[in-house]
């Protein structure tokens, strides 16, 4: 019989929406469990360089929330865990959770990274967009929470160096996954998003053309602890003189199965272009767009500021991309300006502004369905946008559809409020029966 842990509320996902919902509930004295699939909390936001339109350092404003959740007396973190199922159980929910194997004892590891320094195998590091290498045993990144190492067994030679050097004997080659149950009265789903895969668009090279990167990869190049600590062209380390953004590269595109607008790509491209202007003052930066959607508070001014800084906006949809000369990338597009016509341009580095797709499919895990966009379906999208089909289960952030950080945080607060109301109603029912 698996171990059963009891909480007032369960939050699935520890990105910015999940953390905010958990903190809002925990501050009301509810006991909260957070289940996160990754080895660290922080979600996509902790991996960003800066945020629009304020240009705040993403790490500087996310880390305090991560630390607040990690140190909150009412919050328990379960990282590197998979949600197997979420079912109604009387007045609450029961989640079946699997703790994946780190092959490192979580209680013993002190995060000293000696194992990582001694490991002889380098592995492409997805946390750095694949532009750098980590080791086969590693801590995800410097401000990951918790600071616990994990082993990538697919790349481990079992040489034993990590175990020999570990000062607390935390390495455990024989660790097994652990199943346990979480019983809670309410749950918030904050399962976030993924970006449309680079490989899905044949016209854009399916990820095979050198120096065509994703916007999330560019976030890493712009981040203070990025792979190169500066913006360089990945094919040869050249500092690019000309950088282009292709908007709607993974949104509003039926051929990719993503007909909707992802709502954030215009603004993150403008943000990155402004950051690039600072990092590479002599570089030409061009944004190829269909139309700019700057709908949030301060967004239009942000767009106008970018234009005033000299960032070039070219109205035209890029049709295809091909390899240019000397590592360059050639874009073929139909210009909608200056009389129009099919034309082409070459750039040193090209960034695809990929869209947002659902991060988690509830099918087979719980009785919640998804909309035609594959995001979690909300039953009252206008008047109560955090309500799902399951009683007592709410949704927050990009799990319910593409949205930016501000909207995700606002919605997380709303979901926490709904969960709090639900908990209060259950308590009233119990008192009435008594």
């Amino acid at each position, binding site marked *: 019989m698996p171990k059963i842990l009891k909480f007032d509320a369960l939050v699935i996902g520890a990105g910015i929406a999940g953390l905010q919902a958990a903190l809002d509930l925990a501050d009301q004295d509810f006991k909260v469990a957070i289940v996160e699939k990754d080895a660290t909390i922080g979600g996509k936001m902790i991996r960003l360089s800066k945020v629009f339109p304020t240009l705040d350092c993403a790490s500087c404003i996310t880390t305090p929330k991560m630390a607040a959740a990690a140190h909150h007396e009412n919050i328990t973190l379960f990282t590197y865990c998979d949600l197997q199922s979420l079912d109604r159980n009387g007045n609450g929910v029961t989640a079946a959770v699997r703790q994946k194997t780190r092959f490192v004892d979580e209680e013993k590891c002190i995060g000293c990274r000696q194992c990582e320094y001694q490991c002889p195998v*380098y592995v*492409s590091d997805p946390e750095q967009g694949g532009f750098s290498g980590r080791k086969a045993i590693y801590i995800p990144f410097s401000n990951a929470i918790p600071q616990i190492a994990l082993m990538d067994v697919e790349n481990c*030679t*079992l040489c034993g160096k990590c175990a020999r050097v570990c000062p607390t004997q935390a390495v455990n080659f024989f660790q097994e996954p652990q199943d346990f149950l979480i019983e809670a009265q309410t749950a918030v789903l904050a399962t976030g998003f993924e970006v449309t895969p680079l490989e899905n668009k044949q016209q854009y090279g399916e990820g095979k053309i050198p120096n065509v990167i994703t916007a999330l990869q560019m976030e890493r190049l712009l981040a203070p602890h990025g792979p190169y600590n500066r913006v*360089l062209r990945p094919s*040869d*380390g050249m*500092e690019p003189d000309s950088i282009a953004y292709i908007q709607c590269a993974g949104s509003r595109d039926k051929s990719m199965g993503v007909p909707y607008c992802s709502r954030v790509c215009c603004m993150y491209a403008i943000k990155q272009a402004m950051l690039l202007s600072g990092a590479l003052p002599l570089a030409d930066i061009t944004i190829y767009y269909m139309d700019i959607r700057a709908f949030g508070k301060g967004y239009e001014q942000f767009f106008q500021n970018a234009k005033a800084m000299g960032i070039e906006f070219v109205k035209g949809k890029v049709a295809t991309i091909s390899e240019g000369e000397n590592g360059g990338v050639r874009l073929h597009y139909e210009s909608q300006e200056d009389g129009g016509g099919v034309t082409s341009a070459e750039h040193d580095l090209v960034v695809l502004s990929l869209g947002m797709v659902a991060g988690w499919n509830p099918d087979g895990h719980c009785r919640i369905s998804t909309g035609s966009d594959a995001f979690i379906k909300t039953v009252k999208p206008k008047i109560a946008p955090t309500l799902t089909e399951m009683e007592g289960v709410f949704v927050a952030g990009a799990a319910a559809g593409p949205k930016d950080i501000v909207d995700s945080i606002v919605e997380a607060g709303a979901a926490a409020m709904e969960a709090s109301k639900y908990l209060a109603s259950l308590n009233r029912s119990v008192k009435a029966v008594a």
Partner: protein
Amino acid sequence: MSEVSEKKTAEKEAMKKLRAARKETIKRAADKMKKQKNAIKDIKKQLKDKAGTVPEIAEATGIPSSEVLWYLAALKNYGQILEGEKDGSYFRYKWAGNAPEDPGE
């Protein structure tokens, strides 16, 4: 046999079984590690006495320039490479003297 030596024997036996079970992945990882060691050794040879740019290292070692940059980024992350002066559109890199760990050796 003492309790400690019995424990050690059991651990060795368990590791042996684990190695047998993971034979395929260990071979793949070991092959990768061998290739990496050779590449790092070649890069180190180029940079030990003189800083170099990515294209220069690529030309001297025969390693594709994108891979050279990947190795430099990874080695820099673990304190084995230092970024030097800018030379045209490229930066020069040099080997760090006091590397905490050196798989190229």
